[in-house]
């Protein structure tokens, strides 16, 4: 037994002086990679997967539409709805919404407005197509279906 019972000479405590630096590093990482939530999303968002994703270049030109079943079904029913900013809108209100979104941009960039649609995977094509038709009428024809990256096998 005495063979193994050696006296430990090494120091046992881990130096913690670098801990604040590590935490700060993590903090900066999260500060840089994240954006503050702008709207409260009131619809279910189970975003579908896809493989052929493209990245958006200019975030300032993007406006978001959320489509899906309302989270509060007792209040809003279970039919998928369209949410813009913080309120539910009807597809017929989309033109008006696009106009206000375009007004926020510079005059030269108004034609380049991109609509990112975050559509729940259970939402039906009928509603989405209605919105697309209104977008065509409002001349906001750059569209992006937000999807997640599908894992490759």
């Amino acid at each position, binding site marked *: 037994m005495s063979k193994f019972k050696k006296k430990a000479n090494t120091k046992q405590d881990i130096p913690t002086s670098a801990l604040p630096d590590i935490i700060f590093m993590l903090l900066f990482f999260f500060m840089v*990679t994240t954006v503050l939530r702008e709207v409260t999303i009131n619809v279910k968002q189970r975003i579908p997967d896809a493989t052929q994703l493209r990245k958006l270049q200019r975030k300032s030109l993007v406006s978001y539409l959320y489509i899906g079943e309302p989270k509060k079904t007792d209040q809003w029913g279970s039919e998928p709805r369209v949410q813009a900013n913080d309120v539910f809108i009807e597809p017929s209100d989309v033109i008006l919404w696009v106009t206000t979104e375009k007004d926020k941009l510079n005059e030269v960039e108004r034609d380049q407005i991109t609509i990112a649609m975050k559509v729940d995977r259970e939402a039906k094509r009928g509603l989405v197509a209605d919105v697309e038709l209104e977008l*065509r009428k409002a*001349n906001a024809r750059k*569209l992006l279906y937000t999807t997640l990256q599908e894992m490759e096998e």
Partner: protein
Amino acid sequence: MARNKGRDNPEINSSSMADIAFLLLIFFLVTTTIANDRGLSLQLPPNPEDIENIDIKIPERNLFKIQINSADRLLVEGEPFEQDVTEIKDFVLNNGRDPESSDSPKDAIVSLKTDRGTSQERYIEVLDEIQGAYYDMYAARIGVTNKEWRDIASDLTDPENRRLYDEGRGLKDGKLEYPMNLSIAEPSKTGGG
């Protein structure tokens, strides 16, 4: 100016720095979402009221028809289909060899028709497949991978990317040799929704 030289201990106690940083870190973790600005991009056709209503006859051979019904079942070129759509590339690059398939990439049109009751998930899946087939073709033409092609297409402000992008799509005298002719028809109303 009274100066107090040699005062003891001019250092600030920094032992609580880690706690402060932790607090900030947790605050940012809770209040933020990671930005997700990636997805399938699509250019919508112009306002239907502005398009002149001309009946253009497109030969059957130049159309690749994909239909999805309200039960998310696929009908590809009139045949029920269970797996993924894989024949698009053969169809577009046919160049008149097979009399049943397209004349040239320029004339080839992929037509996607859904029902009002089709789920967005299925629609995205098929759209992904079609766009993937075209991106594969473009990428192969300039000798890059599909992923590199999408990176190039996402950033056209760089002149080199712009050049590669036009080369991949075969831009010649202001017209594309390999345009992505994707026609998404208005959904049919049979399935409700």
